């Protein structure tokens, strides 16, 4: 049986699959929320979900417009503060995975959510960091979810809001940071990072896309291994949970 699904649904499912049971996960706005709830409702029931403003392990029954929406805090186990979540869990070194959305990324997984355009000329100022810089700097690893377009996967980004591997090789370590991004999940493919150069590596292509579809819609060239599998499609159960429990109003997955 062929199951229909949207690229957004595949991204959420692919994100969920990266999470392991019992991990502590700091979750940013948007699709990372859907992916994390999906993981927790399926293979990772003992995962801990953290929202920066002071929320641990909520069980929403209604979809909210963002982390500021009390719908997203419903049935939390803990309601506390930035200092409690980002300080005594994240900065203390207890977050296994930081899960972030991005507006722009470069080939080292550096994220820009601050300035679109040329910072020296015309630019558009955006949402900035919130907790994203903190999560990218302090989590043991980071997963990035974003759109796959050449104007988003850019050779050079205008502003590094949240550090990936900076200029590659050991430049992240030189800047005093551990961890770093482990995955970039787009609507066309999943990427990892080369352990030495820290350049982005194509890991799998989402069904329905060709290698050309992937590389021609990027502003830089990923490392391309000889064999590239297709991304495993969502299961019927995963899709049902997303559609009926997590995002019935298609807020994130419209």
């Amino acid at each position, binding site marked *: 049986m062929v199951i229909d699904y949207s690229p957004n649904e595949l991204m959420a499912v692919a994100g969920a699959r990266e999470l392991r049971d019992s991990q502590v996960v700091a979750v940013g706005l948007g699709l990372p929320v859907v992916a994390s709830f999906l993981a927790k409702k399926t293979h990772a029931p003992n995962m801990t979900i953290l929202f920066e403003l002071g929320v641990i392990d909520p069980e929403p029954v209604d979809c909210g*417009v*963002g982390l*500021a929406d009390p719908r997203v805090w419903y049935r939390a186990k803990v309601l506390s503060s930035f200092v409690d979540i980002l300080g005594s869990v994240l900065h203390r070194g207890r977050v296994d995975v930081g899960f972030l959305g991005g507006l722009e990324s470069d080939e080292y997984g550096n994220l820009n959510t601050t300035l679109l355009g040329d910072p020296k000329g015309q630019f558009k*100022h955006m949402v900035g*960091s919130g907790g994203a810089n903190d999560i990218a700097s302090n989590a043991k690893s980071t997963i990035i979810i974003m759109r796959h377009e050449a104007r988003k996967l850019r050779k050079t980004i205008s502003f590094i809001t949240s550090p990936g591997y900076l200029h590659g090789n050991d430049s992240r370590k030189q*800047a005093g940071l551990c961890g770093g991004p482990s995955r970039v999940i787009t609507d066309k493919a999943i990427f990892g990072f080369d352990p030495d150069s820290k350049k982005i590596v194509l890991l799998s292509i989402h069904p329905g896309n060709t290698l050309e579809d992937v590389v021609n819609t990027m502003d830089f060239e990923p490392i391309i291994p000889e064999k590239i599998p297709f991304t495993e499609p969502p299961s019927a159960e995963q899709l049902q949970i997303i559609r009926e429990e997590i995002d019935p109003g298609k807020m994130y997955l419209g």
Partner: protein
Amino acid sequence: MSKLCSMSEAVSSIKPGAHISLPGFAITRCAMAFAHELIRQQIKGLTLSQCVGAMDADLLVGAGLVNKVIYGGGSLDRFGRLANINRGIENGTLAADEYSSLSVAFRYLAGALGLPFIPIRSLMGSDLLNQLKNKESEDIASVDDPFTGKDWLVLKPLIPDVAVMHVQISDDEGNAVILGPKWDNCEQVKASERTIIIAEHIVSTEIIRQNPESTCIPGLFVSHVVEQPFGAYPTSVYREYDYDSDHMKLYVESSCSEEKFAQYLQEYVFTCKDHWQFLDKIGSQILSTLHADSLKGY
């Protein structure tokens, strides 16, 4: 000692040029009634700070009252950007020191605890830090950890002149209860020289004494207490009322240009003598439908 007063009195205690720490997070528990009255009283030259920029800050910037924001970015969640703040930064009319949530929270925490500086592992390697360095910020420095020799970024304490806190419950001394997550609010209060409480409900001190573990703002920090139901409208207050999606959309539309925003201010701020008139303009039907379900809290 009762510190109860009118919104007008509380706002008039703010000096032009003051540094105000605001309570909102995106579109929840914003100091909207307070911001409206600040605009009516035209108290200008303000510096605003909060971990995550919210509608209260955007409104004040749009009204031309603000010289500088110190914040970690922000938005109106899925309703849109902080258009007034963004435009001010793009135009160069608004100074902005941009951090991350934790770095602003740590700056408040250092202020709260009387620490001279606080080390942090965020910002490093990012353009947030480069930007602060390029403008020769005096709020960042580096220190060698005397225990390991490692070089650490350290931040200067952030000590606002006044924290304005929108809370669900307070007594007349300012012993206040915040329900829901508190984001940076407790650190803001403790860091600031003084605090103004805007409460949805005033209760007797007797009630506060029955739940002393819930008092997250001790009255000793507080200079003024104002009772203002729906004081955060059109943003939400957990366990009180929801955000008004329609008004948020109107706000986002209005904030897309200076001209439209001037009309918004005229219609909803200047022609209202106080927050009650603003609420009357919205109408009891809308307000009533926003009331929180007492089980779910929204």
